[in-house]
């Protein structure tokens, strides 16, 4: 377990959910805990296995504890909040936070999202790797129902979208992952290769970066960050990573980077560090058609590829069930719309067959 996470204050209950005198079990970062509220706002917490008291702090309507030694007192909030209910959800804490973080949010705590009225946000209790408890917040009594409604609507969606990263064997090939033209200035392009999410961005000097789509700090997606021209800024805690190396500015951390080669108007990469083996062909004219996303595995797409003159086709396995067809027009006489019609019809046919 990461020391920083252990030493953090973590929410473990809404104060009002603890009846005086009663022992209440809960779980934090894979450890069973017991909570007890002798009276008023006095609360004790200890690991069920050892009985040794943990640090406790009661604030913001909730009980906080730590499995390590918190370096700082618990954060302040800009306004008072009240507990609006707690929900257990079979989704990693980070994914819940991702879903609720908006563009401008600067959370005071890594497991906290604070928003405007009437739903004031949430505290997330990391129970274990793939489960968390969400403690909803409201600003006042009137906001309680809205906070619950909002979360109730989102919960099933969150639960149905646990990303399954299963890198396939034999991933030593190089694949196209974007058109060169997709990487417009100051943009962060979002794609995936064999289940590995990627964040692609072009720096102001023109260099195309292919990075794992995860900030090494808290695992937040970099694609919701900002392309500053020479660095990529994670929108969560503002860590900045240098173009080229992926090195964090001022902090010893690095984003996982992949090789990036631009050829034939496409951006190519490999996940396995294989020597470059981009297909070689001779084309005096070469123009990327619109990449077409197909809800079908690569094998199903490959089996249907037409032998089309004027168009070269390359496949990007996005996941086990999704594939992107990258078309390269090599005949200037054929308009891109015509290739697009062909590829979208092909997509529709493949998807019908896959059902």
């Amino acid at each position, binding site marked *: 377990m990461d020391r920083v996470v252990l030493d953090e204050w973590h929410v473990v209950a809404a104060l009002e959910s603890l009846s005086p005198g009663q022992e209440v079990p809960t779980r934090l970062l894979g450890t069973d805990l017991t909570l007890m509220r002798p009276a008023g706002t006095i609360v004790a917490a200890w690991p069920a296995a050892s009985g040794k008291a943990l640090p406790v702090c009661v604030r913001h309507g909730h009980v906080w504890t730590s499995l390590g030694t918190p370096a700082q007192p618990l954060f302040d909030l800009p306004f008072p909040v009240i507990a609006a209910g707690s929900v257990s959800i079979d989704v990693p804490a980070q994914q819940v936070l991702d879903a609720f973080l908006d563009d*401008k949010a600067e959370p005071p705590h890594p497991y906290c999202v604070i928003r405007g009225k009437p739903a004031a946000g949430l505290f997330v209790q990391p129970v274990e790797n793939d489960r968390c408890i969400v403690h909803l917040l409201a600003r006042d009594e009137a906001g309680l129902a*809205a906070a619950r409604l909002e979360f109730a609507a989102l919960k099933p*969606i969150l639960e149905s979208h646990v990303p399954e990263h299963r890198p396939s064997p034999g991933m030593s090939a190089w694949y196209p992952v*974007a058109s060169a033209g*997709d990487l417009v200035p*100051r943009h962060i*392009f979002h794609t995936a290769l064999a289940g590995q999410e990627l964040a692609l961005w072009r720096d102001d000097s023109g260099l195309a970066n292919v990075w794992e789509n995860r900030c090494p700090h808290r695992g937040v997606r970099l694609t919701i960050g900002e392309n500053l021209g020479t660095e990529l800024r994670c929108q969560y805690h503002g860590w900045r990573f240098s173009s080229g190396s992926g090195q964090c500015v001022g902090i010893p951390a690095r984003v996982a980077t992949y090789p990036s080669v631009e050829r034939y108007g496409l951006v190519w990469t490999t996940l396995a560090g294989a020597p470059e083996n981009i297909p070689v062909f001779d084309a005096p004219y070469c123009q990327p058609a*619109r*990449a077409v996303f197909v809800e079908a595995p690569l094998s199903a797409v490959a089996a249907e590829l037409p032998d089309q003159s004027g168009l070269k086709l390359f496949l990007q396995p996005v996941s086990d069930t999704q594939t992107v067809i990258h078309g390269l027009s090599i005949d200037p006489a054929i308009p891109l719309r015509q290739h*697009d019609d062909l590829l979208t019809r092909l997509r529709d046919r493949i998807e019908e067959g896959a059902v």
Partner: protein
Amino acid sequence: MIALSGSSLSRETYRIRLLFDLAGMDYELRDGPDLALVADGERFEDAWRALSRLAPPDWQADGRWFAFARRLAASPAETALFRELDQHLWFGEREGKPFLCGDHPTVADIGCFPEIMMSDQAGISRLPYPALRRWTDRVRGLPGFTAFP
């Protein structure tokens, strides 16, 4: 003077606020449970009617894409609509039309924006729609833009 009241968590209120903020129109905002809008003595309860009636001339959209925005709002989990929009925007980028109806934003862009930005809540990832993601960058970069609360 325009008086707008509505829930700050409602997409309908946000759509109208976006128009006012982006087009630089003066308005007064109050938090309330239902959308209510009074502009120059006229009362609007339908956000779409308000959008098309109150938009200044250069924010007016062509009928096709305004109707598209209404369809998207009615069916925010319909992937066929996301595909249609992504394709339209990809070709638009090549024809010097970065917005839905051409070279400048209109109420069609505003109409689509809340559903696109909140597509995750409808279970739709924006990963398969690169041109759509670039368009959201452009909308967010417009002067006066305000994020959903």
